[in-house]
């Protein structure tokens, strides 16, 4: 401790800027980690809170995925022994026309039974209509809103609110205002309750319920109750506790969570190299100090512990700052993530409160400190091994010993060999091992590659700027230890950007190919503005109305919804397969390209999206069991196809099969083909005039759907921009760090240059060229590593994360943009150090040792 105060503290005081730069790497990593997780948790917490508040006293909930089920199921539930209350529910998000209010979560309930489950806690004595549920029922325009919502919109009892219904905008009357607390805090207070039959009409549910909330008799356990219900209802229904819906939400967003975790891990990993670099430099610069300590009797262990303690203290301080920054970041991100969840997964949620879990804070601090200590481990070991006699001698110590270089090269060659073998093997554990070993090989070989590239670049740089260029290259050749960490950080950053960019490019290309072959209707008639939003549905008759519109050649009805499959909510798409295949198709992966559609159309099989097939290990011929309200549906896999309809993949079955087993003839989307000779805009106007006048609908042209998909894909990859920004920022910090040290190390050299006639501009150019050279040396191996990384990521994503099979494509466009960005960033990073180099005292510089 005394050494920490006497030795370390003094060094930090002397190198404040460098210490700050180093800590920033950890600050950024921890901030991204805390920010992403806090924002995620806040959205999840809000979702769970909404579920909890809406569930009220319900102990169990009966559902059939997103698809809902017939009203008749209610009687079967009520007949189960031990069920005290069984209340049907429609739960959907409605679009208000109120400025700034956006979505409203509408709960359709049966007032006769529901009040034993949920306490509406209405204000004052104005409960009039609600006191008598029959009065409420008799008025289908009745609405109860929360007090916060009423206050925000100046509503009171008997006020009118316009809401969009499946049949167009309709006026509702506020007949009750719920007091703040409990139910009112669900969905950020944007909650309304209406009669369930009015809700069925409003959202186009037909005669179906979304779920049934259940309270059990006293003495009946939840396990016992759910067991009885499962037996009574059969495999087509799910009986779960309300909290298990939170787990489903998490399952749906699992891919997103993986990506969010990768961001923080990458930032921390890159930050680790900054710390390594700083400590490696510190050990070199403090050789004399270490030598004196050792000469005075400090043991190797004491010196090692001194450096490790320094790194732990630095990690702790940086992590604490990172946690605070992450909390601030989370506030900004929660809204974005909430909107993103709605857009990509069709799950709407509003995170009102952003609070950080103390366990997360502890984990972040632990990760920050561990990263820092790990990064300092090698420099600390080197410090401990310094020979006191040699340490007190003057000389250059930045060069890597030939022995160390040779060891690194041998290890790297071995690692590359293992990586190649693993890449060829392609099996699960080998793939991960291969990826890990590739990164290790790259990091090990980075200093040697850096020196080698600097040597290669020297003639060109000397030719371009004889003094400045040669000195910049020599600085890197002679002192690889000074820059190796920065080069490694840069290399990893560039590899990260290349990998992410590659995935983005490959995904865009694959999605566009799929859109071309699969989403080729001229227009899509939807019940909501967004394709992923499934709140509103159409009655089947709308399809017939559309077919009668002049200029319409064909209309294909599509019903989509999530159903449970092997414990995960998986998307089910039902369509008239024969009609679909007559005009479109999906690129086949496995199975007879024609036969698969024939079998599916005949109800003898189903099609599986490739990514789902990979994740769930499904092959052609395997029998899939789908739970339906009409019983267990067993269908063999007729074919595996490319389908990007949902991130977790989907099953495609014939609409007739769906209607038979789900007894549901509602429709989410109509695929409309325009007759030859007819003009799209004319048909669209005719649809709006003939069908839209009676029915809420949105006509999206093919171009709009493409733009929508492109937008959703952009939003998804928007997260990668955060990664890219963090990676570039951390690298720039690394360059500033390296250059600051380089300027200090080369003080005398730069002083000599000025003494023999170099003007300020020439000194600045020397520093700029050095910075650009560092960037170039980091970028080139980074691109190579990125190309390899992309291969591993695509394989890992295909096998274990999303299951998407996308073709390998090196992102040349992104690289073309990245290289100048990195060089510009390097130039910007050099401005401060270059100014420091020309502003110092020449006399001091010439005396510097």
């Amino acid at each position, binding site marked *: 401790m005394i050494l920490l105060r006497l030795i370390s503290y003094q060094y930090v005081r002397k190198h404040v800027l460098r210490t700050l730069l180093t800590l920033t790497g950890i600050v950024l990593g921890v901030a991204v980690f805390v920010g992403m997780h806090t924002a995620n948790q806040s959205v999840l917490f809000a979702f769970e809170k909404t579920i909890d508040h809406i569930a009220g006293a319900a102990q169990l909930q009966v559902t059939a995925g997103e698809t809902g089920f017939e009203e008749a199921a209610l009687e079967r539930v009520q007949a189960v022994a031990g069920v005290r209350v069984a209340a049907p529910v429609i739960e959907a998000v409605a679009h208000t026309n109120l400025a700034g209010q956006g979505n409203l979560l509408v709960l359709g309930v049966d007032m006769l039974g529901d009040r034993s489950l949920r306490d509406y806690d209405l204000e004052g004595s104005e409960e009039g209509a609600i006191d008598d549920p029959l009065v409420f029922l008799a008025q289908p325009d009745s609405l109860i809103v929360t007090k916060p919502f009423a206050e925000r919109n100046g509503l009171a009892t008997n006020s009118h609110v316009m809401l969009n219904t499946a049949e167009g905008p309709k006026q509702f009357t506020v007949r009750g205002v719920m007091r703040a607390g409990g139910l009112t805090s669900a969905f950020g207070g944007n909650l309304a309750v209406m009669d369930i039959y009015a809700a069925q009409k409003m959202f186009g549910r037909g005669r179906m319920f979304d779920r049934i909330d259940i309270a059990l008799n006293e003495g009946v356990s939840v396990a016992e109750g759910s067991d009885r219900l499962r037996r009574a209802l059969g495999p087509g229904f799910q009986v779960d506790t309300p909290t298990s819906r939170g787990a489903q939400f998490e399952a749906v967003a699992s891919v997103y969570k993986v990506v969010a975790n990768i961001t923080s891990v990458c930032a921390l990993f890159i930050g680790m190299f900054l710390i390594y670099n700083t400590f490696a430099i510190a050990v070199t610069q403090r050789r004399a100090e270490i030598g004196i300590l050792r000469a005075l009797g400090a043991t190797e262990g004491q010196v090692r512990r001194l450096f490790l303690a320094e790194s732990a203290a630095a990690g702790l301080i940086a992590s604490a700052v990172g946690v605070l920054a992450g909390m601030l970041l989370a506030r900004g991100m929660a809204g974005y993530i909430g909107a993103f969840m709605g857009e990509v997964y069709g799950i709407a949620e509003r995170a009102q409160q952003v609070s950080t879990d103390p366990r997360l804070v502890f984990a972040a601090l632990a990760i920050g400190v561990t990263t820092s200590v790990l990064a300092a481990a090698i420099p600390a070991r080197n410090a401990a091994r310094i020979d006191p006699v040699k340490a007190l001698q003057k000389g*250059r110590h930045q060069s890597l010993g030939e022995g160390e270089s040779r060891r690194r090269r041998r290890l790297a060659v071995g690692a590359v060999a293992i990586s190649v073998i693993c890449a060829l093997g392609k099996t699960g554990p080998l793939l991960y091992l291969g990826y890990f070993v590739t990164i290790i090989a790259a990091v090990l070989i980075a200093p040697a590659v850096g020196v080698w590239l600097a040597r290669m670049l020297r003639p060109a740089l000397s030719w371009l700027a*004889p*003094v400045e260029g*040669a*000195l910049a290259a*020599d*600085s890197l*050749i*002679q002192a690889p230890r000074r820059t190796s960490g920065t080069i490694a950080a840069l290399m990893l950053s560039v590899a990260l950007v290349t990998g992410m960019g590659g995935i983005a490019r490959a995904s865009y290309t694959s999605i566009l190919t799929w859109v071309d072959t699969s989403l080729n209707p001229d227009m899509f008639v939807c019940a909501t503005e967004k394709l992923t939003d499934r709140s509103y549905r159409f009655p089947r008759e709308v399809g017939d109305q559309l077919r009668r519109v002049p200029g319409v050649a064909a209309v294909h009805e599509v019903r989509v919804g999530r159903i449970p499959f092997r414990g995960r909510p998986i998307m089910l798409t039902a369509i008239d397969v024969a009609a679909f295949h007559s005009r479109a198709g999906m690129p086949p992966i496995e199975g007879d390209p024609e036969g698969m559609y024939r079998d599916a159309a005949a109800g003898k099989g189903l099609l599986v999206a490739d990514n789902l097939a990979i994740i769930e290990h499904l092959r052609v011929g395997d029998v899939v069991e789908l739970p339906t309200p009409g019983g267990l549906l067993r269908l063999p896999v007729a074919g595996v196809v490319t389908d990007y309809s949902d991130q977790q993949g989907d099953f495609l079955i014939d609409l007739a099969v769906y209607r038979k087993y789900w007894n549901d003839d509602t429709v989410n989307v109509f695929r409309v083909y325009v007759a030859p000779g007819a003009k799209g805009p004319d048909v669209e106007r005719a649809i709006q005039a003939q069908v839209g006048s009676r029915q809420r609908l949105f006509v999206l042209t093919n171009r709009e759907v493409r733009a929508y998909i492109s937008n959703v894909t952009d939003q998804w990859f928007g997260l990668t921009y955060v990664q890219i920004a963090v990676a570039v920022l951390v690298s720039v910090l690394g360059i500033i760090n390296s250059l600051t040290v380089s300027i200090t190390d080369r003080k*005398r*050299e730069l002083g*000599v*240059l*000025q*003494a*023999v*006639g*170099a*003007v*300020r*501009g*020439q000194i600045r150019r020397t520093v700029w060229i050095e910075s650009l050279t560092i960037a170039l040396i980091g970028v080139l191996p980074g691109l190579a590593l990125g190309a390899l990384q992309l291969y591993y990521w695509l394989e890992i994503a295909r096998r274990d994360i999303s299951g998407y099979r996308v073709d390998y494509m090196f992102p040349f466009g992104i690289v073309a943009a990245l290289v100048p960005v990195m060089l510009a960033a390097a130039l910007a990073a050099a401005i401060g150090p270059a100014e420091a180099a*020309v502003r110092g*005292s*020449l*006399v001091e510089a*010439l005396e510097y040792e």
Partner: protein
Amino acid sequence: MIALRGVSKTFDGRRTVTALDNVTLEIPKGDMAAIIGPSGSGKSTLLNLVGGLDRATSGEVAIDGQALGGLADDALTRVRRDKIGFIFQFFNLLPTLTCFENVAIPLHLRGWGRGRIEERVRELLGLVGLEKRLEHLPEELSGGERQRVAIARALSVYPPILLADEPTGNLDTHTGADILALIHDLHDRLGATVLMVTHDRTVAASCPRTILLRDGRVESDERTGA
């Protein structure tokens, strides 16, 4: 001609240290003077002020009638580049550059063409007897050879003024004598003004003029007729 008029230099720290105190000197063109004095007497400070590496706190330093005090940093650098050559005690060669490259630096900085630089560097290294060491790195040379390279670099444009700070201070007696002889030879052949800081009485005695500094003041200024 080098002229110092009432030049003082103080360093501000916890307490103010006066390195030079109201020094007035004139070194005519072609003169060769040794500046001697005990440690802390202001020898190196005086040399730094004449060489434009530092600025006087008060008074005026002029080279060929041009006052250095009012010049901007880059203008001062140009005076240094065109009129002054430096020889340092610790050579101050750039360790990563070859002898050729070290000597070529000032010429590159002046923007000379490659052909002209090569010709001049070969000529200079020949002048100091190192024509066969063109591609050697400083660490491959002896101390005396390194100082010769430093001298060749200082002479790169045959500046009218040569400033040497303890040029033999880091060399053994025999090598030091060689270097001193070289400086004298160059002074005779090139006619440059040479100002040499030394604590070595033998070196000082070899110069026709000796200026003794003590506590920042000129205690004596003698011509020995050497």
